[in-house]
Protein backbone atom coordinates (compact mmCIF):
# COMPACT_ATOMS: atom_id res chain seq x y z
CA UNK A 1 0.00 0.00 0.00
CA UNK A 2 1.25 3.50 -0.82
CA UNK A 3 0.61 4.97 2.60
CA UNK A 4 2.69 2.25 4.17
CA UNK A 5 5.73 3.91 2.71
CA UNK A 6 7.87 5.53 5.42
CA UNK A 7 8.19 8.64 3.30
CA UNK A 8 5.19 10.91 3.43
CA UNK A 9 4.14 9.19 6.64
CA UNK A 10 2.92 10.72 9.86
CA UNK A 11 5.49 12.43 12.08
CA UNK A 12 7.39 9.96 14.23
CA UNK A 13 6.82 10.23 17.95
CA UNK A 14 10.00 9.52 19.84
CA UNK A 15 10.60 9.42 23.59
CA UNK A 16 13.76 9.37 25.60
CA UNK A 17 14.14 8.45 29.25
CA UNK A 18 17.15 9.79 31.10
CA UNK A 19 18.52 9.48 34.58
CA UNK A 20 20.26 12.07 36.70
CA UNK A 21 23.20 10.29 38.34
CA UNK A 22 26.00 11.20 40.72
CA UNK A 23 29.22 11.92 38.90
CA UNK A 24 31.61 12.47 41.75
CA UNK A 25 34.38 10.05 42.46
CA UNK A 26 33.98 10.11 46.21
CA UNK A 27 30.67 8.95 47.52
CA UNK A 28 29.62 9.25 51.08
CA UNK A 29 27.60 6.75 52.99
CA UNK A 30 25.41 8.08 55.74
CA UNK A 31 26.51 6.15 58.82
CA UNK A 32 23.10 6.41 60.41
CA UNK A 33 20.93 5.23 57.53
CA UNK A 34 23.49 3.25 55.56
CA UNK A 35 22.35 5.12 52.47
CA UNK A 36 24.34 7.03 49.97
CA UNK A 37 24.08 10.75 50.49
CA UNK A 38 22.73 11.68 47.11
CA UNK A 39 21.78 15.22 47.94
CA UNK A 40 25.41 16.14 48.48
CA UNK A 41 26.72 14.34 45.44
CA UNK A 42 27.45 16.12 42.19
CA UNK A 43 25.09 14.87 39.53
CA UNK A 44 24.70 15.00 35.80
CA UNK A 45 22.86 13.19 33.05
CA UNK A 46 23.83 9.51 32.84
CA UNK A 47 26.58 9.38 30.18
CA UNK A 48 25.07 6.85 27.77
CA UNK A 49 21.73 8.69 27.88
CA UNK A 50 23.52 11.27 25.76
CA UNK A 51 24.29 8.56 23.21
CA UNK A 52 20.60 7.65 23.27
CA UNK A 53 19.69 11.31 22.76
CA UNK A 54 22.12 11.52 19.86
CA UNK A 55 20.54 8.46 18.27
CA UNK A 56 17.06 9.92 18.69
CA UNK A 57 18.25 13.14 17.07
CA UNK A 58 19.81 11.23 14.18
CA UNK A 59 16.55 9.36 13.57
CA UNK A 60 14.64 12.63 13.75
CA UNK A 61 17.01 14.18 11.24
CA UNK A 62 16.67 11.22 8.89
CA UNK A 63 12.93 11.77 8.62
CA UNK A 64 13.11 15.57 8.39
CA UNK A 65 11.80 15.45 4.81
CA UNK A 66 9.37 12.62 5.48
CA UNK A 67 6.98 13.86 8.08
CA UNK A 68 9.54 14.79 10.71
CA UNK A 69 9.58 13.69 14.34
CA UNK A 70 9.07 15.02 17.82
CA UNK A 71 11.11 14.00 20.84
CA UNK A 72 9.74 13.99 24.38
CA UNK A 73 12.12 13.54 27.29
CA UNK A 74 11.23 11.92 30.61
CA UNK A 75 13.16 11.57 33.81
CA UNK A 76 12.07 10.10 37.10
CA UNK A 77 13.90 11.56 40.04
CA UNK A 78 14.15 14.46 42.44
CA UNK A 79 14.18 18.13 41.37
CA UNK A 80 17.86 17.92 40.51
CA UNK A 81 16.89 15.80 37.50
CA UNK A 82 15.53 18.97 35.90
CA UNK A 83 19.12 19.70 34.93
CA UNK A 84 19.32 16.50 32.90
CA UNK A 85 15.99 17.23 31.24
CA UNK A 86 17.20 20.72 30.44
CA UNK A 87 20.19 19.15 28.76
CA UNK A 88 17.84 17.08 26.59
CA UNK A 89 15.95 20.22 25.63
CA UNK A 90 19.22 21.96 24.82
CA UNK A 91 20.10 19.01 22.62
CA UNK A 92 16.87 19.26 20.68
CA UNK A 93 14.09 17.54 22.62
CA UNK A 94 10.77 19.27 22.04
CA UNK A 95 9.20 18.68 25.43
CA UNK A 96 10.36 17.39 28.77
CA UNK A 97 8.61 15.96 31.81
CA UNK A 98 9.90 15.38 35.29
CA UNK A 99 8.30 12.42 37.07
CA UNK A 100 8.79 13.31 40.66
CA UNK A 101 7.10 12.37 43.87
CA UNK A 102 8.17 11.24 47.29
CA UNK A 103 6.14 8.12 46.62
CA UNK A 104 8.53 7.28 43.77
CA UNK A 105 11.58 7.69 45.95
CA UNK A 106 11.95 4.13 47.15
CA UNK A 107 11.44 2.49 43.76
CA UNK A 108 13.65 -0.39 42.67
CA UNK A 109 14.22 -1.02 38.97
CA UNK A 110 10.84 -2.67 38.50
CA UNK A 111 9.09 0.20 40.27
CA UNK A 112 10.96 2.72 38.17
CA UNK A 113 9.94 0.87 35.04
CA UNK A 114 6.31 0.93 36.24
CA UNK A 115 6.38 4.70 36.71
CA UNK A 116 8.04 5.28 33.35
CA UNK A 117 5.62 2.90 31.60
CA UNK A 118 2.65 4.70 33.13
CA UNK A 119 3.69 8.12 31.89
CA UNK A 120 4.95 6.86 28.53
CA UNK A 121 1.51 5.37 28.03
CA UNK A 122 -0.18 8.57 29.16
CA UNK A 123 1.86 10.79 26.83
CA UNK A 124 2.13 8.20 24.04
CA UNK A 125 1.85 6.41 21.83
CA UNK A 126 5.50 6.50 20.79
CA UNK A 127 7.10 4.76 17.87
CA UNK A 128 10.49 4.39 19.51
CA UNK A 129 11.45 4.90 23.14
CA UNK A 130 15.15 5.49 23.66
CA UNK A 131 17.00 4.81 26.89
CA UNK A 132 20.61 4.70 27.96
CA UNK A 133 21.95 1.17 28.26
CA UNK A 134 22.77 1.35 31.95
CA UNK A 135 22.82 3.89 34.70
CA UNK A 136 26.35 4.62 35.81
CA UNK A 137 25.30 4.40 39.46
CA UNK A 138 23.46 1.11 39.26
CA UNK A 139 24.79 -0.52 36.11
CA UNK A 140 22.08 -3.13 35.84
CA UNK A 141 20.47 -2.22 32.53
CA UNK A 142 17.11 -3.66 33.51
CA UNK A 143 14.86 -0.64 33.35
CA UNK A 144 14.69 -0.53 29.54
CA UNK A 145 13.61 -4.15 29.00
CA UNK A 146 11.27 -4.01 32.02
CA UNK A 147 9.56 -0.88 30.69
CA UNK A 148 9.18 -2.56 27.33
CA UNK A 149 7.66 -5.66 28.90
CA UNK A 150 5.22 -3.52 30.89
CA UNK A 151 4.18 -1.71 27.71
CA UNK A 152 3.94 -5.04 25.91
CA UNK A 153 6.44 -4.02 23.26
CA UNK A 154 9.79 -5.51 22.22
CA UNK A 155 13.10 -4.16 23.41
CA UNK A 156 16.50 -4.24 21.81
CA UNK A 157 19.54 -3.68 24.04
CA UNK A 158 23.06 -2.61 22.99
CA UNK A 159 21.80 -0.78 19.94
CA UNK A 160 24.40 0.68 17.60
CA UNK A 161 22.11 2.29 15.00
CA UNK A 162 18.46 2.60 14.15
CA UNK A 163 16.89 3.66 10.87
CA UNK A 164 13.49 3.52 9.25
CA UNK A 165 12.62 0.34 7.40
CA UNK A 166 10.92 0.11 4.05
CA UNK A 167 7.46 0.24 5.54
CA UNK A 168 5.98 2.51 8.16
CA UNK A 169 6.13 0.92 11.58
CA UNK A 170 9.32 -1.00 10.82
CA UNK A 171 12.83 -0.13 11.80
CA UNK A 172 16.23 -1.59 11.02
CA UNK A 173 18.14 -1.93 14.27
CA UNK A 174 21.78 -2.90 14.57
CA UNK A 175 22.65 -4.52 17.85
CA UNK A 176 26.05 -5.20 19.39
CA UNK A 177 26.38 -8.80 20.54
CA UNK A 178 29.43 -10.65 21.82
CA UNK A 179 30.13 -12.01 18.34
CA UNK A 180 29.79 -8.68 16.56
CA UNK A 181 26.76 -6.93 15.13
CA UNK A 182 23.29 -8.32 14.52
CA UNK A 183 20.84 -6.67 12.13
CA UNK A 184 17.22 -6.81 13.15
CA UNK A 185 13.96 -5.75 11.62
CA UNK A 186 11.76 -4.61 14.49
CA UNK A 187 8.10 -3.64 14.45
CA UNK A 188 7.32 -0.49 16.41
CA UNK A 189 6.50 0.50 19.05
CA UNK A 190 9.69 -0.56 20.76
CA UNK A 191 12.23 0.32 23.41
CA UNK A 192 15.90 0.54 22.43
CA UNK A 193 18.74 0.92 24.90
CA UNK A 194 21.93 2.60 23.77
CA UNK A 195 25.41 1.99 25.20
CA UNK A 196 28.16 4.53 25.73
CA UNK A 197 30.47 5.21 22.82
CA UNK A 198 28.35 4.00 19.88
CA UNK A 199 28.13 7.53 18.54
CA UNK A 200 29.62 10.91 19.29
CA UNK A 201 26.98 13.00 21.06
CA UNK A 202 26.85 16.58 19.95
CA UNK A 203 27.05 19.37 22.48
CA UNK A 204 24.25 21.76 23.26
CA UNK A 205 24.98 25.16 21.79
CA UNK A 206 24.75 28.44 23.64
CA UNK A 207 21.70 29.31 21.56
CA UNK A 208 19.97 25.99 22.27
CA UNK A 209 20.83 26.22 25.96
CA UNK A 210 19.21 29.65 26.12
CA UNK A 211 16.11 28.21 24.46
CA UNK A 212 16.10 25.29 26.88
CA UNK A 213 16.35 27.57 29.90
CA UNK A 214 13.10 29.18 28.78
CA UNK A 215 11.04 26.01 28.27
CA UNK A 216 8.89 25.05 31.23
CA UNK A 217 9.25 21.46 32.37
CA UNK A 218 6.00 20.11 33.85
CA UNK A 219 6.29 17.97 36.95
CA UNK A 220 4.07 14.87 36.90
CA UNK A 221 3.34 13.29 40.25
CA UNK A 222 1.96 10.17 41.84
CA UNK A 223 -1.49 11.73 41.86
CA UNK A 224 -1.84 10.52 38.28
CA UNK A 225 -1.42 6.89 39.30
CA UNK A 226 -4.24 4.70 40.57
CA UNK A 227 -4.13 3.28 44.08
CA UNK A 228 -3.52 -0.11 42.57
CA UNK A 229 -0.59 1.16 40.53
CA UNK A 230 0.86 2.88 43.57
CA UNK A 231 0.64 -0.28 45.63
CA UNK A 232 2.66 -2.08 42.98
CA UNK A 233 5.56 0.37 43.33
CA UNK A 234 6.68 -1.17 46.61
CA UNK A 235 10.26 -2.32 46.13
CA UNK A 236 10.85 -6.02 45.79
CA UNK A 237 14.62 -5.81 45.80
CA UNK A 238 15.59 -4.06 49.00
CA UNK A 239 18.98 -2.72 49.96
CA UNK A 240 19.52 -3.87 53.52
CA UNK A 241 22.94 -2.33 54.06
CA UNK A 242 25.51 -0.18 52.30
CA UNK A 243 29.10 0.46 53.11
CA UNK A 244 31.70 2.52 51.31
CA UNK A 245 34.66 0.55 50.07
CA UNK A 246 37.90 2.36 50.83
CA UNK A 247 38.76 3.91 47.50
CA UNK A 248 42.38 3.94 46.50
CA UNK A 249 43.53 7.42 47.51
CA UNK A 250 47.00 6.10 46.80
CA UNK A 251 47.85 3.77 43.94
CA UNK A 252 49.03 0.30 44.76
CA UNK A 253 52.68 0.05 43.74
CA UNK A 254 53.77 -2.50 41.18
CA UNK A 255 57.20 -3.62 42.32
CA UNK A 256 60.13 -5.14 40.50
CA UNK A 257 62.16 -4.49 37.37
CA UNK A 258 60.74 -3.59 33.98
CA UNK A 259 60.22 -7.25 33.17
CA UNK A 260 58.24 -7.92 36.32
CA UNK A 261 56.24 -4.74 35.83
CA UNK A 262 55.39 -5.68 32.25
CA UNK A 263 54.26 -9.11 33.38
CA UNK A 264 51.99 -7.64 36.04
CA UNK A 265 50.59 -5.08 33.58
CA UNK A 266 49.85 -7.84 31.09
CA UNK A 267 47.98 -9.77 33.72
CA UNK A 268 46.01 -6.75 34.95
CA UNK A 269 45.10 -5.62 31.44
CA UNK A 270 43.94 -9.07 30.47
CA UNK A 271 41.76 -9.41 33.55
CA UNK A 272 40.37 -5.91 33.22
CA UNK A 273 39.44 -6.23 29.57
CA UNK A 274 37.48 -9.40 29.89
CA UNK A 275 34.01 -9.05 28.53
CA UNK A 276 31.15 -9.46 30.99
Amino acid at each position, binding site marked *: MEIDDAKGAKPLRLAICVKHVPTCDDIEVDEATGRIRRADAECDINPCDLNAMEMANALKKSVADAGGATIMAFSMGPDGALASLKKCLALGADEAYLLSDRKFAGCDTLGTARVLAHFLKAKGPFDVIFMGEMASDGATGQVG*PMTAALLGVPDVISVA*TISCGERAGQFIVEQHIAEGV*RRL*LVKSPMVVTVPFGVNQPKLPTLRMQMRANKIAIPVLTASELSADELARLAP*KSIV*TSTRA*IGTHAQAE*LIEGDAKA*IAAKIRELVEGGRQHV
Partner: protein
Amino acid sequence: MSEIVVFAPITGQGVLPSTAEVVTAARDICGAGDRVIVVAADDDVARYRDALSFEGVDELVLIRTPDITGANTDALSHAIADALEDRDVSFVLAPASDAARSVMARVAVLMDAGMTAAVKTLEVAGDGDIAQLKTSFGDQAMVSCSLTTRPGIVTLLPGNYDAALLSASGAPSVTERVADGLVSAVEVLADDGGAGNSDDEVLPITAADYVVCVGRGAMTGDNFELAKKYAAKAGAALAGSRPMIDNGWLPFAAQVGESGTVIRPRVALILGVSGAIQFTEGIKGEPLTIAVNTDKDAGISHFAKYLAVADMGDVLKELLSDV
Protein backbone atom coordinates in the same frame (compact mmCIF):
# COMPACT_ATOMS: atom_id res chain seq x y z
CA MET B 1 11.37 -27.98 49.43
CA SER B 2 11.75 -25.59 46.58
CA GLU B 3 13.50 -25.24 43.28
CA ILE B 4 16.39 -23.05 42.34
CA VAL B 5 16.35 -22.38 38.63
CA VAL B 6 19.42 -21.54 36.57
CA PHE B 7 18.60 -19.86 33.28
CA ALA B 8 21.14 -20.86 30.64
CA PRO B 9 21.26 -18.37 27.76
CA ILE B 10 21.92 -19.80 24.31
CA THR B 11 23.95 -17.48 22.08
CA GLY B 12 25.29 -17.74 18.56
CA GLN B 13 28.23 -19.55 20.10
CA GLY B 14 26.23 -22.01 22.12
CA VAL B 15 25.76 -22.15 25.87
CA LEU B 16 27.16 -19.05 27.57
CA PRO B 17 30.25 -20.32 29.44
CA SER B 18 29.58 -18.36 32.65
CA THR B 19 26.38 -20.38 33.11
CA ALA B 20 28.58 -23.04 34.75
CA GLU B 21 29.51 -20.57 37.52
CA VAL B 22 25.85 -19.80 38.15
CA VAL B 23 25.20 -23.52 38.61
CA THR B 24 27.78 -23.53 41.41
CA ALA B 25 26.14 -20.52 43.02
CA ALA B 26 22.78 -22.33 42.89
CA ARG B 27 24.29 -25.41 44.54
CA ASP B 28 25.82 -23.19 47.22
CA ILE B 29 22.49 -21.81 48.40
CA CYS B 30 20.67 -25.07 48.02
CA GLY B 31 19.09 -26.13 51.30
CA ALA B 32 18.19 -29.66 52.28
CA GLY B 33 15.58 -31.01 49.89
CA ASP B 34 15.95 -28.12 47.44
CA ARG B 35 16.46 -28.94 43.80
CA VAL B 36 18.63 -27.23 41.19
CA ILE B 37 17.06 -26.96 37.75
CA VAL B 38 18.69 -25.72 34.57
CA VAL B 39 16.35 -24.12 32.03
CA ALA B 40 17.21 -23.28 28.44
CA ALA B 41 15.09 -22.19 25.50
CA ASP B 42 15.96 -22.09 21.83
CA ASP B 43 14.71 -23.01 18.41
CA ASP B 44 17.19 -25.89 18.41
CA VAL B 45 17.51 -26.48 22.12
CA ALA B 46 18.02 -30.25 22.03
CA ARG B 47 21.44 -29.65 20.50
CA TYR B 48 22.67 -28.26 23.77
CA ARG B 49 21.60 -31.12 26.01
CA ASP B 50 25.16 -32.33 26.67
CA ALA B 51 26.61 -28.87 27.10
CA LEU B 52 23.91 -28.19 29.71
CA SER B 53 24.34 -31.39 31.71
CA PHE B 54 26.19 -30.01 34.70
CA GLU B 55 27.14 -31.98 37.73
CA GLY B 56 24.92 -31.47 40.76
CA VAL B 57 21.85 -30.51 38.75
CA ASP B 58 18.61 -32.32 39.48
CA GLU B 59 16.68 -31.54 36.33
CA LEU B 60 17.24 -30.06 32.92
CA VAL B 61 14.30 -28.29 31.29
CA LEU B 62 14.68 -27.86 27.55
CA ILE B 63 12.12 -25.58 25.94
CA ARG B 64 11.92 -25.75 22.18
CA THR B 65 10.80 -22.40 20.78
CA PRO B 66 10.15 -22.79 17.05
CA ASP B 67 11.61 -19.82 15.10
CA ILE B 68 12.40 -18.00 18.33
CA THR B 69 16.03 -17.46 19.38
CA GLY B 70 18.09 -15.21 21.67
CA ALA B 71 17.23 -12.04 19.75
CA ASN B 72 13.48 -12.50 20.32
CA THR B 73 13.46 -11.64 23.98
CA ASP B 74 9.82 -10.49 23.79
CA ALA B 75 8.75 -14.05 22.95
CA LEU B 76 11.48 -15.97 24.75
CA SER B 77 10.57 -14.41 28.09
CA HIS B 78 7.01 -15.73 27.73
CA ALA B 79 8.27 -19.25 27.07
CA ILE B 80 10.35 -19.17 30.23
CA ALA B 81 7.77 -17.57 32.47
CA ASP B 82 5.20 -20.15 31.29
CA ALA B 83 7.56 -23.02 32.04
CA LEU B 84 8.13 -21.78 35.58
CA GLU B 85 4.56 -20.87 36.36
CA ASP B 86 3.45 -24.12 37.96
CA ARG B 87 6.66 -24.79 39.81
CA ASP B 88 7.60 -23.81 43.33
CA VAL B 89 10.64 -21.73 42.47
CA SER B 90 12.49 -19.75 45.15
CA PHE B 91 15.15 -18.21 42.92
CA VAL B 92 15.86 -17.81 39.25
CA LEU B 93 19.58 -17.26 38.74
CA ALA B 94 21.21 -16.23 35.48
CA PRO B 95 24.56 -14.94 34.30
CA ALA B 96 24.76 -11.14 34.36
CA SER B 97 25.41 -11.00 30.67
CA ASP B 98 23.92 -9.18 27.71
CA ALA B 99 22.65 -12.57 26.55
CA ALA B 100 20.36 -12.86 29.59
CA ARG B 101 19.69 -9.25 30.54
CA SER B 102 16.62 -8.45 28.51
CA VAL B 103 15.05 -11.89 28.95
CA MET B 104 15.44 -11.91 32.74
CA ALA B 105 14.14 -8.35 33.09
CA ARG B 106 11.09 -9.30 31.08
CA VAL B 107 10.56 -12.51 33.03
CA ALA B 108 10.63 -10.39 36.20
CA VAL B 109 7.77 -8.30 34.82
CA LEU B 110 5.78 -11.30 33.65
CA MET B 111 6.11 -13.04 37.03
CA ASP B 112 5.95 -9.75 38.98
CA ALA B 113 9.14 -10.88 40.65
CA GLY B 114 11.75 -8.78 42.39
CA MET B 115 15.12 -8.70 40.65
CA THR B 116 18.65 -7.94 41.76
CA ALA B 117 21.13 -7.68 38.90
CA ALA B 118 24.91 -7.81 38.59
CA VAL B 119 25.41 -9.53 41.91
CA LYS B 120 28.83 -10.72 43.02
CA THR B 121 27.95 -13.38 45.54
CA LEU B 122 25.01 -14.86 47.42
CA GLU B 123 25.06 -15.37 51.13
CA VAL B 124 22.78 -17.51 53.24
CA ALA B 125 21.80 -15.41 56.24
CA GLY B 126 20.99 -16.77 59.68
CA ASP B 127 17.24 -16.69 59.08
CA GLY B 128 17.66 -18.63 55.86
CA ASP B 129 17.21 -15.52 53.76
CA ILE B 130 19.54 -15.31 50.77
CA ALA B 131 21.34 -11.97 50.65
CA GLN B 132 22.72 -10.62 47.37
CA LEU B 133 26.03 -8.80 47.66
CA LYS B 134 26.96 -6.37 44.94
CA THR B 135 28.93 -3.22 44.34
CA SER B 136 27.29 0.08 43.63
CA PHE B 137 28.52 3.45 42.40
CA GLY B 138 31.23 1.94 40.30
CA ASP B 139 33.18 0.06 42.87
CA GLN B 140 32.79 2.58 45.63
CA ALA B 141 30.16 0.95 47.78
CA MET B 142 29.17 -2.59 48.64
CA VAL B 143 25.47 -3.17 49.13
CA SER B 144 23.57 -6.10 50.44
CA CYS B 145 20.12 -6.71 48.90
CA SER B 146 17.22 -8.89 49.74
CA LEU B 147 14.26 -9.96 47.58
CA THR B 148 10.72 -9.91 48.91
CA THR B 149 9.09 -12.04 46.24
CA ARG B 150 9.04 -15.70 45.47
CA PRO B 151 10.56 -16.36 43.07
CA GLY B 152 13.25 -13.72 43.19
CA ILE B 153 15.46 -13.17 40.17
CA VAL B 154 19.20 -12.66 40.47
CA THR B 155 21.87 -12.21 37.81
CA LEU B 156 25.43 -13.04 38.78
CA LEU B 157 28.66 -11.47 37.52
CA PRO B 158 31.27 -13.88 36.24
CA GLY B 159 34.48 -14.56 38.12
CA ASN B 160 33.13 -15.13 41.62
CA TYR B 161 32.30 -18.82 41.56
CA ASP B 162 34.14 -21.83 40.20
CA ALA B 163 32.58 -23.27 37.08
CA ALA B 164 30.52 -26.43 37.66
CA LEU B 165 31.82 -29.40 35.71
CA LEU B 166 29.83 -31.24 33.10
CA SER B 167 28.39 -34.41 34.51
CA ALA B 168 30.36 -37.53 33.69
CA SER B 169 27.24 -39.66 33.85
CA GLY B 170 25.39 -37.64 31.21
CA ALA B 171 22.22 -35.65 31.53
CA PRO B 172 20.13 -35.53 34.68
CA SER B 173 16.45 -36.08 34.27
CA VAL B 174 15.37 -34.06 31.27
CA THR B 175 12.00 -32.41 30.78
CA GLU B 176 11.25 -31.35 27.24
CA ARG B 177 8.68 -28.71 26.41
CA VAL B 178 7.61 -27.03 23.24
CA ALA B 179 6.46 -23.43 23.36
CA ASP B 180 4.20 -23.06 20.34
CA GLY B 181 2.53 -20.03 18.97
CA LEU B 182 5.06 -17.51 20.21
CA VAL B 183 5.02 -14.21 18.35
CA SER B 184 7.90 -11.79 18.23
CA ALA B 185 8.07 -8.27 16.84
CA VAL B 186 11.76 -8.84 16.15
CA GLU B 187 13.09 -10.51 13.03
CA VAL B 188 16.77 -11.32 12.61
CA LEU B 189 17.98 -10.12 9.20
CA ALA B 190 21.66 -10.89 9.57
CA ASP B 191 23.63 -12.43 12.34
CA ASP B 192 26.96 -12.41 10.59
CA GLY B 193 28.88 -10.75 13.35
CA GLY B 194 30.13 -8.30 10.75
CA ALA B 195 30.93 -4.72 11.59
CA GLY B 196 28.01 -2.33 11.58
CA ASN B 197 27.88 0.63 9.27
CA SER B 198 28.34 2.99 12.18
CA ASP B 199 32.01 2.17 12.57
CA ASP B 200 33.56 5.02 10.69
CA GLU B 201 31.59 7.62 12.65
CA VAL B 202 32.94 6.39 15.94
CA LEU B 203 35.93 8.04 17.58
CA PRO B 204 38.27 5.19 18.36
CA ILE B 205 39.32 6.41 21.81
CA THR B 206 35.74 6.64 23.01
CA ALA B 207 34.79 3.22 21.75
CA ALA B 208 37.92 1.27 22.74
CA ASP B 209 37.84 -1.04 25.74
CA TYR B 210 41.56 -0.53 26.26
CA VAL B 211 43.23 2.86 25.92
CA VAL B 212 46.92 3.63 26.20
CA CYS B 213 47.40 7.28 27.25
CA VAL B 214 50.73 8.94 26.78
CA GLY B 215 51.94 12.26 28.18
CA ARG B 216 55.05 14.36 27.99
CA GLY B 217 57.08 11.43 29.22
CA ALA B 218 56.59 10.01 25.72
CA MET B 219 58.44 12.90 24.15
CA THR B 220 61.85 11.52 25.05
CA GLY B 221 63.75 8.95 23.03
CA ASP B 222 61.64 6.49 21.12
CA ASN B 223 59.03 6.24 23.88
CA PHE B 224 56.27 7.46 21.60
CA GLU B 225 57.06 4.98 18.85
CA LEU B 226 57.14 2.18 21.41
CA ALA B 227 53.78 3.22 22.81
CA LYS B 228 52.32 3.33 19.33
CA LYS B 229 53.63 -0.13 18.57
CA TYR B 230 52.39 -1.54 21.83
CA ALA B 231 48.91 -0.05 21.39
CA ALA B 232 48.69 -1.58 17.92
CA LYS B 233 49.85 -4.93 19.22
CA ALA B 234 47.44 -4.91 22.16
CA GLY B 235 44.50 -3.71 20.07
CA ALA B 236 44.27 -0.57 22.18
CA ALA B 237 43.48 2.98 21.15
CA LEU B 238 46.30 5.47 21.61
CA ALA B 239 45.40 8.70 23.38
CA GLY B 240 47.40 11.57 24.80
CA SER B 241 47.50 14.40 27.30
CA ARG B 242 47.17 17.91 25.97
CA PRO B 243 50.87 18.60 25.44
CA MET B 244 51.01 15.59 23.10
CA ILE B 245 48.33 17.18 20.97
CA ASP B 246 49.58 20.76 21.23
CA ASN B 247 52.97 19.65 20.06
CA GLY B 248 51.63 17.69 17.13
CA TRP B 249 52.36 14.13 18.30
CA LEU B 250 48.73 13.06 18.16
CA PRO B 251 45.59 14.51 16.52
CA PHE B 252 43.10 16.49 18.59
CA ALA B 253 40.61 13.63 18.49
CA ALA B 254 43.06 11.67 20.64
CA GLN B 255 43.23 14.24 23.46
CA VAL B 256 41.87 13.01 26.76
CA GLY B 257 40.64 15.56 29.24
CA GLU B 258 38.75 18.68 30.06
CA SER B 259 39.32 20.36 26.73
CA GLY B 260 39.52 17.09 24.84
CA THR B 261 37.45 13.93 25.01
CA VAL B 262 36.00 11.93 27.87
CA ILE B 263 36.76 8.23 27.57
CA ARG B 264 35.21 5.26 29.38
CA PRO B 265 37.37 2.28 28.61
CA ARG B 266 37.58 -0.86 30.70
CA VAL B 267 41.31 -0.44 31.14
CA ALA B 268 43.57 2.60 30.78
CA LEU B 269 47.36 2.38 30.77
CA ILE B 270 48.68 5.84 31.57
CA LEU B 271 52.31 6.41 30.61
CA GLY B 272 54.35 9.50 31.41
CA VAL B 273 51.35 11.60 32.39
CA SER B 274 51.56 13.67 35.56
CA GLY B 275 47.83 13.45 36.26
CA ALA B 276 46.62 17.06 36.21
CA ILE B 277 42.93 17.28 36.99
CA GLN B 278 42.21 18.56 33.49
CA PHE B 279 43.58 15.26 32.25
CA THR B 280 42.00 12.91 34.81
CA GLU B 281 38.59 14.52 34.23
CA GLY B 282 38.70 12.85 30.84
CA ILE B 283 38.72 9.30 32.22
CA LYS B 284 35.37 8.17 33.57
CA GLY B 285 33.38 5.09 34.31
CA GLU B 286 35.83 3.68 36.86
CA PRO B 287 38.07 1.78 34.52
CA LEU B 288 41.04 -0.19 35.79
CA THR B 289 43.83 2.42 35.69
CA ILE B 290 47.51 1.54 35.60
CA ALA B 291 50.14 4.28 35.53
CA VAL B 292 53.83 4.17 34.74
CA ASN B 293 55.77 7.20 35.87
CA THR B 294 59.35 7.90 36.85
CA ASP B 295 58.09 10.07 39.71
CA LYS B 296 56.46 8.11 42.50
CA ASP B 297 54.78 11.29 43.82
CA ALA B 298 53.30 12.38 40.50
CA GLY B 299 49.65 13.39 40.90
CA ILE B 300 48.61 10.35 38.90
CA SER B 301 49.48 8.23 41.95
CA HIS B 302 46.32 9.56 43.59
CA PHE B 303 44.20 8.70 40.57
CA ALA B 304 45.46 5.40 39.23
CA LYS B 305 44.68 2.13 40.90
CA TYR B 306 48.17 0.79 40.18
CA LEU B 307 51.43 2.65 39.75
CA ALA B 308 54.75 1.36 38.51
CA VAL B 309 57.64 3.69 39.24
CA ALA B 310 59.71 3.10 36.14
CA ASP B 311 60.77 4.47 32.81
CA MET B 312 57.90 4.01 30.38
CA GLY B 313 60.33 3.12 27.59
CA ASP B 314 61.76 0.21 29.56
CA VAL B 315 58.33 -1.11 30.43
CA LEU B 316 57.08 -0.78 26.86
CA LYS B 317 60.07 -2.67 25.52
CA GLU B 318 59.21 -5.52 27.87
CA LEU B 319 55.55 -5.37 26.94
CA LEU B 320 56.50 -5.61 23.27
CA SER B 321 58.84 -8.55 23.73
CA ASP B 322 56.99 -11.82 23.49
CA VAL B 323 56.85 -14.04 26.50
